[in-house]
């Protein structure tokens, strides 16, 4: 089952995603390597990731805060994305059970 609207949305999402991915390579030689624009682009990835996770952690319950701490500790101990993710899931699962939150 698919509606016209959802097909349009998926095709549109696919088109902009492909355009951006190809566009980065095609524009690479023209992108400024110095100045404000370059500095701005350099800071986007970290800022977007911070903006993605902050509301879930900072406005979360103690379970989310404990899980974020566990994720951070395991990441610095192992430098392993999967281990850090697994620790976060495990702690949030246990904390919600124990704290009932």
């Amino acid at each position, binding site marked *: 089952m698919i509606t016209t609207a959802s097909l349009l949305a998926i095709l549109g999402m696919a088109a902009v995603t492909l355009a951006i991915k190809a566009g980065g390579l095609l524009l690479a030689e023209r992108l400024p390597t110095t100045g404000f624009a370059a500095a701005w682009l350099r800071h986007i990835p970290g800022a977007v990731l*911070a903006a993605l996770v902050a509301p879930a952690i900072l406005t979360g319950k103690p379970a989310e805060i404990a899980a*974020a701490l566990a994720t951070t500790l395991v990441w610095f101990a192992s430098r392993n994305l999967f281990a850090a993710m697994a620790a*976060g899931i495990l702690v949030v699962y246990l904390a919600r059970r124990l704290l009932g939150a």
Partner: protein
Amino acid sequence: MEKPLPSARNRFWSQFTLGARACLPVCISVAAYGVVWGVLARQAGLSLLEVVLMSGLVFAGSAQFVALDQWTPGALPVGALVLAALIVNLRYLLLTATLRPLFPPGTVGRGALAMALVTDENWAMTVGEMAKGRGTPAFLLGGGVLAYACWMGATVTGRLLGAAIDDPAAYGLDFAFTATFLALLLGMWRGKADLVPWLVAALAAVATARLIPGSWHIVVGGLCGSLAGALLEIRRAGSAR
């Protein structure tokens, strides 16, 4: 078109296999949150066909997660979904720009097609190789094809399992997303210069999330944080001169 020599073909496949092998551990994490996405997609009301098409054509984890927030069957905000995908994927401009050395003049057209298979994971592995003086388009593609297969298989599995797992939060699965991006963020730490932009991004995102529903906190936080970072960097460079 000339047929590639057997040795050239062998070299392609050995690089392809190397790239896939390098991405294997991180693809376990890709699959883990692919399943989560599939489960959430079912709750958001996406059909199996919609899941296959979105994973197969969009193939962008964070954009697909954001899309679920906005997915309201019956009154789908098509423009907002496309705009959010554009904004969330903006980072790929930077990522694929760094792959330019892999594609000598004349092969950039083919390279642009290969960019469809770039993910955060195989990109990171490939620039790691390039820093050691290695790295080929085949290496990039090997990781990309593996990530694509994992993402497709996992999202479909999650969509089908959705019947069994009605509430991923009951298993802590909702936190996989936050934990993965938190770990990715921590991996991006390059020094004190990151502190202010990240704090600005986080605070702007929290404030926006309270005021406006949907994914705008990512856009507002991302823009505020990155602009703050750029302003500070330019001012530091200016005062050092």
